[in-house]
């Protein structure tokens, strides 16, 4: 045989991260499932917002849902509520929850390792590609949800969650900011998706890890858990935008949600990375190890919940459910005053300011035998106010349904001419009565002492 010489090879460098990232992006976008999700994110919110805002029956359960026929921005905000329940965790499942598992299903790990030559860069490129697609899907949702409402209803002012009127321009900025606030918790759930995908391989549980986590956290949130634990969960960050719709803003939950979400994102990504670089790529039937996942994936996250809960409790001093009688009374007085001003303008009565009303509220939950604290539908409140230049005191009754996370729905119970009917007769015709039913929010972390208003 002829002797053949070969050049002494040098050990080659791994593929550049940018190329590996592009490779992963091409693979992701080529999946029909991802393309369908993109189409759904582009079309569904527009269609939903445009169709529902024209209906007489509106999704009053969703924050701003009852106002969808009054401003195009309300549709986007109502969709934002759905995002924070299961939709965003589901989106992160479809993308991040599958990005590692798909290589297990196709048996392409060895191929990928030979092509990229670095498990670290494979991990980084996959994580970045998943993040890119998730953020692109989120951008589609934002644009689509805004387009549907604005095209069908237009840009009109809306009352904030304390009743103060937010003009169109400011409202647009606030709605956009509200969507931006759900990016951190989305990152957290994406990281959990990566962790599930790495740890459990082809197992369906790995794919659905963000959804499973969301269900567990939602289960915790409907229970009367201490407020420190509630705000230390990444799920709470999905609703922290509510504080942007009050004046002054309730930004405490947002900042805590930001820190909690980024902590989850960092820890879950690190745990996924550690599991990934330690895995045996020669095992073609990798379904992950449940024990390893619990010890090296789940336990540190549970530990993070414990640590953040303690830190929140220590730094805010928040105890109990965070829903106290005094907070509700203060929130209802403020909302009522601001909305009364709107009603006054609607009815073309002499102008009045919220401060001139000197509104006070007395609330009671379920009679004398029940402690006036915590979430529930049994709150009954009476608002008293006086008009400038008069000595007579008006009063209006509200039934309050208070959710554990601080949102309340105030349902007017009379008198009819103030808050007992859903419409008011204005000089230009019948119009929605702003005092009939409205949403409000109490700051769970606000250290207002009992009796203070």
């Amino acid at each position: 045989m002829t002797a053949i010489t070969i050049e002494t090879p040098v050990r080659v460098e791994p593929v550049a991260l940018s190329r590996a990232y592009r490779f992963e992006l091409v693979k992701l976008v080529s999946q029909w499932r991802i393309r369908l999700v993109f189409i759904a994110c582009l079309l569904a919110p527009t269609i939903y917002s445009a169709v529902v805002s024209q209906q007489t029956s509106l999704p009053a359960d969703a924050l701003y849902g009852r106002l969808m026929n009054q401003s195009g921005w309300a549709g986007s905000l109502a969709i934002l509520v759905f995002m924070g329940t299961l939709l965003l965790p589901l989106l992160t499942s479809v993308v991040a929850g599958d990005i590692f598992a798909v290589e297990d299903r196709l048996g392409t790990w060895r191929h990928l390792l030979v092509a990229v030559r670095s498990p670290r860069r494979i991990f980084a490129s996959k994580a970045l590609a998943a993040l890119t697609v998730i953020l692109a899907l989120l951008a589609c949702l934002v644009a689509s949800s805004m387009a549907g409402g604005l095209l069908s209803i237009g840009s009109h002012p809306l009352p904030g969650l304390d009743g103060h009127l937010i003009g169109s321009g400011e409202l647009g900025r606030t709605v956009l900011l509200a969507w931006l606030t759900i990016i951190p918790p989305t990152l957290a759930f994406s990281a959990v998706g990566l962790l599930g995908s790495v740890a459990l391989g082809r197992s369906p549980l790995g794919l659905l890890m963000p959804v499973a986590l969301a269900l567990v956290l939602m289960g915790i949130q409907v229970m009367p858990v201490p407020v420190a634990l509630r705000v230390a969960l990444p799920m709470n960050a999905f609703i922290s935008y509510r504080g942007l719709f009050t004046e002054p803003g309730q930004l405490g939950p947002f900042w805590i949600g930001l820190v909690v979400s980024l902590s989850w994102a960092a820890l879950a990504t690190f745990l996924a990375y550690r599991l990934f670089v330690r895995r045996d790529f020669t095992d073609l039937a990798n379904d992950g190890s449940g024990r390893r996942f619990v010890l090296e994936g789940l336990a540190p996250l549970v530990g993070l919940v414990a640590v953040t809960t303690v830190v929140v409790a220590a730094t805010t001093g928040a105890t109990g459910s965070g829903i106290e009688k005094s907070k509700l009374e203060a929130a209802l007085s403020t909302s009522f005053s601001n909305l009364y001003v709107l009603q006054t303008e609607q009815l073309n009565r002499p102008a009045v300011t919220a401060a001139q009303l000197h509104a006070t509220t007395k609330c009671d939950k379920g009679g004398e035998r029940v402690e006036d604290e915590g979430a529930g539908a049994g709150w009954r409140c009476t608002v008293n106010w006086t008009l400038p230049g008069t000595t007579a005191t008006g009063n209006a009754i509200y039934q309050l349904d208070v959710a554990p996370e601080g949102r309340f729905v105030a349902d007017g119970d009379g008198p009819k001419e103030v808050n007992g009917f859903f419409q008011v007769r204005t000089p230009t015709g019948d119009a929605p009565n702003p005092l009939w039913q409205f949403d409000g929010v109490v700051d769970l972390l606000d250290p207002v002492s009992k009796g203070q208003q």
Partner: protein
Amino acid sequence: MHPTAAVRARSVTKTFGDVIALDGVDLDVAAGQIHGLVGPNGAGKTTLLGLLLGLAAADGGKLEILGTPVGRALAVTGGVAGFVDGPGLYPTLTARQNLTTLASLRGEEGGRSAAHVDELLERVGLSEVAGDSVRGFSLGMRQRLGLAAALLGDPRLLVLDEPANGLDPAGKRQVHRVLTDLAASGATVVLSSHRMDDLASLCDEVTLLSEGRVVFSGPVRKLAAESGELDYRLVSSDPDGARRIAGGTPSLHQVAGRKGSPKGDDHALVVRGPDQALDDLVVRLVGAGIAIRELGPVVPPLEAAFLALTGADTDADTYAEELTR
């Protein structure tokens, strides 16, 4: 530039828990050679190929790939490409997209990359289905596309696990041509196969593994010689006469047919003996006016050597009791 072995392994060991996959394996593969790895299931072929591809690290011994010592950490040596356990392809991409994305991963982009991809698709006979999704490809088409993917980086060592799996005769011929051309250009090919005829027609040398150990390594013709005396099947115009003459031929044994031999094969005679005795039998049959319609080994020499060296021919069912002269 200096002459060197493409692969040089000394006492390489690899274990997975309690399972010893490779047990002191020595291997020398010269550059520009097509080297076959053969052995029964679980012999360690895929593990050895995985070490060459950098998918796993040896637990012990020394391994040099293209002149570069391989350490204990996972690392892919430059110039090495291939696949084990089937090619890694993405079913949502077309054949061309699978190759172009891989090419861009390696830094090849633009018109030159497209031309290279088209040339590779042409070489493996997939030009006509280049725009089709890989999801609908047969196993043989996937194998050929996997080969094209492995050739993207112009490898100096190509490592292939069962590349002939699922290939039809035309596809097999195409793949063989690609591999022999590659070897002729100076690259080295290490491949595994269960098909002894493939190895015989393709490989310069073969290494036979059994239970993680090398039981033979050398040229194919030398492996054939390891088979010892073979059984030959003789079909003639006069079976009874042929049986009588075979019985009278020195150093020749008549052997009962294999269990499970085809029905209607009663007229065939199976004999065993050295080549000289077979030559003698042929002369005697012709002299007696008996026409020889068929004479050939019952088991091909390479397969017989495989069975002999791996101990797989000791099964009681393999042969019936030997007839005495």
